[in-house]
């Protein structure tokens, strides 16, 4: 099955001014990601991998070059349009989970939907509860982040990332703060989203084993891709204890 390109970076440069020093984080990066693909981005610190992901996620704009999302160049859009794209089409998962500490799990998952302002409070709550149940937190719905373990927090973050049913999930070191067992649980959920929900996933990681979950691994160094490793076959993944997750959570 031939897949369409969903993300394309063309000759993307990012140059920071740090005091008197010019830092070239990205130096003409080219990258193409197909719809439904799972791509890992690896590289030493300072290689520009986080910067690249931030660009794709519309959190930052490039100094030079073009970024296409579904064929539309988003490199030089206004902040309000970027916010729109972030909210609707991209889900973020961070190394430090980044949940809002004063809000419960359900409220954290509700938040992205609130910013879209397209559903009633009741609809939002129902969807949040459904998503949290899906990531195995049905009994933790109204706990605050501080009352949850790291793995649980990251699962709340996964639920939050798909609250608005985005096409693309950007994960920046999603297992970086987790031990290997909980890290595996989180990776399994991500893999599941990719396989069953057909989400495009771009993941930054240091961890070779974690990177192996992807269809393709891109190695970055000094702001350009130096190696690309495509996997012939997708690893078959079995879910923990054969749990049967219901992933039919797409809105309508």
């Amino acid at each position, binding site marked *: 099955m031939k897949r369409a390109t969903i993300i394309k970076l063309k000759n993307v440069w990012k140059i920071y001014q740090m005091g008197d020093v010019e830092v070239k984080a990205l130096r003409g990066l080219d990258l193409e990601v197909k719809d439904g693909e799972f791509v890992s981005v690896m590289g030493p610190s300072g290689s520009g991998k986080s910067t690249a992901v931030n660009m794709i996620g519309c*959190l*930052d704009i490039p100094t030079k070059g073009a970024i296409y999302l579904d064929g539309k160049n988003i490199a030089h859009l206004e902040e*309000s349009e970027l916010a729109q794209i*972030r909210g609707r089409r991209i889900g973020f998962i961070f190394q430090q989970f*980044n949940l*809002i500490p004063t809000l419960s799990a359900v409220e954290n998952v509700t938040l992205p939907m609130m*910013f879209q302002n397209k559903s009633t409070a009741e609809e939002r709550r129902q969807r949040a509860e459904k998503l949290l149940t899906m990531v195995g937190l049905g009994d933790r719905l109204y706990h605050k982040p501080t009352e949850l373990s790291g793995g649980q927090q990251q699962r709340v973050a996964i639920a939050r990332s798909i609250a608005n049913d985005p096409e693309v999930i950007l994960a920046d070191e999603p297992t970086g703060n987790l031990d290997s067992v909980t890290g595996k649980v989180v990776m399994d959920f991500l893999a599941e989203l990719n396989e069953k929900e057909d989400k495009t996933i771009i993941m930054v990681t240091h961890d070779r084993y974690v990177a192996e979950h992807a269809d393709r691994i891109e190695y970055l160094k000094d702001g350009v891709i130096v190696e690309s490793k495509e996997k012939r076959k997708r690893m078959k993944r079995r879910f923990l204890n054969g749990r049967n997750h219901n992933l039919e959570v797409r809105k309508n």
Partner: protein
Amino acid sequence: MHRKMRSWLTVLSILIGVMAIYAIVSFGLGIQSYMDTIAEEAGTDKIYIQPRGTGAPGTDENFFISEDEANFVSKIKGIDKTLAWYLKAGLIKYKDQQKYYFLAGIDPETDQEFLDQVFTVTVDKGRHLKKGELDKVVLGYNYQVDDRVFEKGVQLGDKVEINDVKFTVVGFYEEIGNPSDDGNIYLTFDAFEMLYPETEGKYGALIMSTLPGENPSDIADKVEDKLRKYKGEDEGKETFFVQTFEDALETFGNVINVLNGILVLIALISLVVASVNIMNTMYTAVLERTKEIGVMKAIGAKNGDILFIFIFESGFLGAVGGAIGVLFGYLIASSGGKAAAAAGYSSLYPIFPWQLTAACIAFAFFVGAIAGVLPAMQAAKQKPVDALRYE
């Protein structure tokens, strides 16, 4: 924990201002309603003539309204009834205690309804004075209460000495609500003239009612004009002044309003200080939550959303301060009202309409929201990538 503490301190600062405003305005409204009641009871058809003196009425020998003048005025067209009364400070003695209070000499033959209207109260214990009674007295409300005028309240039938002459107490007036009026001593014309022979025919004040259909202030102007000519005085140098009851109330009301206004202004200044406090708290909050702002932007918050969140939060801080301020203001004002009543100032009472509560809380929210605008703008304009990276 620090965050919570800081929020509460901020709430406290706005609370104080709102508390003061609520308490002050509730008393202001109380006075307004008291005056409305007085105006209703006395009727607005009344005109006062008082001698213009240097001292308080009754203490200045040189200023009075003569009997001739009273007769002249009472015959002016448009005037219905006229009440002349004597007024002088006198010494009252009861069971070895003595105090100075105002003696009022009234003519018992005056139409009782008119008299009640003028005084806004009537005798509710015992009876009114009768013409010619030389050894009877009616006292103001406070005399019957322990520890107001005398240690022991005076009873009906008791004897009091006024300027060393013995009188029997035959009645008490209802409460007017201030210690001066409620300490009045009421005598007949004859008794007053017996105590002060030299003041015969020299009245302390005239009170007149106007005929129905007449405009009291027009009549007051006419009375002033005619009496000036009668006395042969120059305009602006009269030894008397004429005022409608309405004007008198209005003058009093204006004084109260100005006083109230000044107090509210001071309270408003405290709210300005509180708003600076809120602004400071919000700036700190924005800084502390920079990363949170980054996260919210990452999950789709637009600048306007962030702006709204922080302004609303700031307003909410204000509203919480406002609500608690209203509560404390209510406690202070109601206990203040009780204290005033216990001290004989029952006319000084607060009222608490719900609109005042709503306005105070809404205003506090507004002050908070305004104070939050600049910090919220700072929050909104953060670059998402920088905010996310902030530790």
